[in-house]
Structure formats: C-alpha cells, structure tokens
C-alpha cells in the first residue's frame, strides 16, 4: 500500500480530490457544490461496484442495498440514539461491510449470472424487511429533526461539512480502488475474473477473496448513503432501495471502462452531467431510464471496454500512467 504514494496516479487522484474541494469552496458556489456532490456519489458507487465487476468479474445489480442500509443505520443512530455524525457513519460503514461479508460467503457460491440475479433478489428482500421493521419506521421511514445539524454549525454549514465528507468518501473509494488494483489481492481478483477455476488451481483462495471484495465494495457506498440521507433529513424504503441508482452505477462503470479507476470516475462525472441536463429538460425527464438503457446497450454491443478501452487503444502510452 505504501508503494502507492510513489506512483503518479496516486497524485492524479489527489489532484482531483483537491479540485473537488477547492473549486466550490473558494467561490462559495452552492450550485456547483450540489452538482459535484451528486458526482461524488456516482463516483463512489461506481468505483466500489467496479471492484466486483471489473476486477473479479461479478456483476452486482443490487449495490444500492449497501447505500440504503448505510443510510438507514446512520440516520437511525443519529435520530433515535443521538450519536454524533462521524460515529454513525463509521458504524454504518463497518456494519454494512460486516453484513456484506457474511452474506457474501453465502451468495458468492453462486457463479456468474446466478450471482447477478440473486443480487436483485437481495434488494427486494432487504426492502421488504425494512418496510416491515417498525424500529426503522416501516414503510413510512424516518424523519430527522433539524437539531441534529446544530453540532455541525447549523444547516448552512452542515451542508458544507457533508459535502467535504462526500468528497473524502469519493477520494477513499478511488484510493481503495487503485490500491487494490496494484496489490497481491488485486492480482488474485483479476485472476478470478479471467478464469475462476484456473485461479483456484493456482492457489488463489477464491471463496475468501470474493467475500473480501464484496465486503470492500459495500463499505464506502454505505458511508455515502449515510451522508446522503442525513443531508436529506429523511429516509424511506422506496428511496433507499431504488434499483435505478445501482443500475446507473453499473452503466457508469461500463461506460467508463470496467476495471479502470480513471474510466469509472470520468464515466460517473459525464453521466451525472448528462442526467442533470435531462432532468431539467421537460421532454426527457421521464426517460432517464431509457437513456441509461440505450447507453448500456450500445456499450455492451459495441464498446464493451468502455471509454478507457477506446482511449487505451488510440493512445497506448496513457496506460502506463492512468489506471
């Protein structure tokens, strides 16, 4: 991991994180901040998804479940138990990570398409559970009282704190993604993605590695979820477990180039801008899903390596610096 600091790509990530912090802060630009906040969420979700998809080769349709559960744990701890935000976020991240590890050991016995299908079912299952779970407000959800923003300096300042939290989470997800890629663990994952049976015969401890990466892909989305729903001051099952968000994360990961750190980040940013434009334009607002679908279809049919695949084939030198 320490080896990471010497690599140029590490500093590219750091620059990006710095840009995300400085540009809105210096101009006190709230609109830019909100737009970038959404981008950080997409980048976090897509980078984390990429750990499963691009490295180990497992499609997770239901990554939203980490986001939603993280949101619920954080909001519940803050609201019902008056925990400070940071502690709640840590609890959300660790809790969801641990749950993912346990669940993962079970469902990761399923191969390829079966695993993918079961991830959809997990979302349905968790949503049904939460809808009937009274301590978490059942289907009505949880509202947070505004007083929770006071320790952060009031609602105005709180939004900035939350934003920086989101940027930090995004940064961590990019560092994590890169760090894993250049590690021995990452090599094992890539081998699993290429040929799981051959990898096992070579000595890669496949069940454990798959569970670790599944768990790793859960932690930061959970924290992001905690921040997002804390900011909204409200969480309900239909929002927390909305499959379209994890679908978009998938589209973004494939758009940018699964398995690449840069591609996923660029893809997330581009997609978020596109989406923002679509939402504002009256004609297209209902058809977000359609756009996602068309994009995904085009990528799968014609550009399975995504944006970065295209860039690497045109400019092979970039592959040495970018990841």
């Amino acid at each position, binding site marked *: 991991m320490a080896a990471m600091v010497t690599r140029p790509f590490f500093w590219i990530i750091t620059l990006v994180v710095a840009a995300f912090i400085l540009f809105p802060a210096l101009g006190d630009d709230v609109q830019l901040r909100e737009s970038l906040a959404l981008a950080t969420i997409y980048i976090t979700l897509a980078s984390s998804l990429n750990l499963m998809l691009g490295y180990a*080769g497992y*499609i997770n*349709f239901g990554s939203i479940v980490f986001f939603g559960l993280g949101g619920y744990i954080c909001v519940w701890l803050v609201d019902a138990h008056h925990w400070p935000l940071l502690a709640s976020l840590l609890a959300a991240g660790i809790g969801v990570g641990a749950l993912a590890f346990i669940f993962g050991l*079970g*469902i990761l*016995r*399923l*191969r*390829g*398409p*079966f695993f*993918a*299908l*079961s991830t*959809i*079912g*997990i979302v*349905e*299952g968790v949503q*049904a*559970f939460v*809808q*009937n779970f009274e301590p978490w407000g059942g289907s009505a959800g949880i509202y947070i009282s505004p007083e929770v923003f006071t320790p952060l300096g009031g609602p105005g300042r709180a939004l900035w704190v939350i934003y920086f939290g989101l940027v930090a989470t995004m940064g961590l997800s990019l560092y994590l993604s890169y760090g894993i890629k250049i590690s021995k663990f990452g090599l094992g994952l890539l081998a699993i993605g290429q040929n799981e049976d051959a990898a096992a015969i070579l000595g890669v401890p496949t069940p454990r590695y798959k569970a670790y990466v599944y768990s790793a892909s859960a932690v930061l989305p959970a924290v992001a979820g905690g921040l997002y729903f804390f900011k909204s001051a409200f969480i309900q099952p239909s929002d927390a477990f909305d499959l379209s968000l994890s*679908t978009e994360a998938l589209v973004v990961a*494939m758009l940018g180039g699964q398995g690449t750190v840069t591609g996923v980040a660029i893809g997330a940013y581009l997609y978020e801008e596109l989406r923002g434009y679509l939402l504002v334009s009256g004609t297209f607002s*209902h*058809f*977000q*899903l*359609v*756009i*996602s*679908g*068309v*994009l*995904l*279809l085009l990528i*799968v*049919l014609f550009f*399975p390596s995504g944006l970065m695949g295209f860039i690497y084939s045109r400019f092979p030198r970039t592959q040495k610096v970018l990841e």
Partner: protein
Amino acid sequence: MLGIIASIIDGVLVGLVYGLSAMGLTLIWGVMDVINLTHGTMIVGGMFALYFLATGLGVPPYLALLPVLVGGFLAGVALYWLAVHRMVGRPPLMSLLSTFAVNLVLIGIGTGVWGTALFNVAVSLPGVSLGRYTFPGAHILAAVLAAVIAASLYLFLHRTRLGKAVRAVANNREAAELVGIPTTRVLAVTVGCGVALAGVSGLLIGTLFPFTVLSGDGYQLKGFVVTVLGGFGNPVGALLGGVALGLLEGAVTPFVPVSWTLVIEFALFVLVLIAFPGGIFASRRGAL
C-alpha cells in the same frame, strides 16, 4: 383446514399459469444460454395487450390469445436481432447486460407513458364450487389453457422438424451448424417463441390479477425459481416447477403477509442454487 386445501388447489391452478410464464424464460436459457431479462416486461406486454384489446377494442379476452401470440413472436425476433444475436457464444453475463439494457428502455417508456397506474381486466366466468369454496372460473380456464399451450410446445419440440432443430441447437450449436441447420434462424425463432410464451402467459395472468407496468419483476423472479426447480430448457419441468411454486404459495399465503411471498421465493431461488449449483437438473443441461 379445508380453507388451506382450497388455497392449495387454487395455488396449483395458478401454478400452472406460473409454469407457462416461466417456459419462455427457460426455453431461451436452455437453448442458447441467454438469460432474457426483458422476460418480466414481455409478460407485462401481454397484460397490456389484453387490456387494450379486451377493454379498448372489445375483443373477447381469450380470443386475444392469438394476436398476442403472433405479436409476441415478432417482438421476440426483433429482440433477438437487437440484443441477443451478437451475444450468442459470449459469456452469459453479456447477454444478461444487453437484455437488461433493453428492459431499462422498455420500463422507461412504460413508466413514462403509464406511470405506476393499476390496470384491471374484469373477467368473470362461472366458477366451480366445493362446499363453501368457489374456484373462480377464470383460474380454471387459465390453468387449462396453460396446460394446453405447454403441451403444444412439447409437441412442437418433439414432433416437428423445426422443434428438432431447436433441440439440436440447444445440445450443441456448432455441431448443429455442421449438419446444415441454419442456427441463426433457429435461435431467432426460439427467442420469438420464448417471448410469445411470455406474452400469452401475461394475458392469462391479466385475466386473474390486476397489474401495473412494474408487475413484471415479480413474475420474472417466479420464472427464475421455476427454471432452477424444473431444469433449463425443459417445458415439462417448467410446468411442474410452476405447480410446485403455486403449491408453495397456496400453502404459505394464508399465514404470511403478501409482501413476504416474493422474499420467500427469492430465498428459495438462492437456496436451491447453493445446494444445486446448476439447478436441480444440472446434469441435463443442453438436453430439452
């Protein structure tokens, strides 16, 4: 006690329709290792076709089966050329993604136009009474039709030349190609049949229960459960699997809130796969 038995019998009737609804999915999966994630939406397509033909144009509901069959077949062939053709031979994950993408487009259009409004087609037929319990005529007729259609599929696969070609391609596509079977045409026909089956099962389900644009998800999940229970590409297995599922639902629903039914079925799906990684009849993969 009698109530539970009645519930179970009704479950079997509905189960036959579930079996039919899974047949399209298992056929496509078994023949070309493609997982059609538009399956649920195609079922909804059948439901909407029923609505517009029966309620809008006044066509008697069961006569609408024919146009839905034909329309579904054409839609299936279109789906093949759009999203499946280039994916054959690639890992099943890719076809999962491509059909998923098409599904997004369809759902996006569907919800954009109709939102999440509830639709209902009122079909009332004289039922059969056993003591205090009446089995709705619609349930009985739907079950009978499901069985008839399933039998027709079986006859098609085993008694016609085209059906034989389909089974050959399912067994070994390259070998089939070598003996002169036009595999691309056969694959397109298979997807056409698969979607047609989804469509007509949707029509039949539409005569039983109300629906929205998003209802497809639930039936698709049931389709997956039935597929792993009954074996890939096995129409008879699908029917039996559907009945088993219907039985399970009949036995469980009196005791459990409705929202949990799907969760239980999903759990069943996962557990069966953990125990039998290729489905219960894994050794028969490739044999219809």
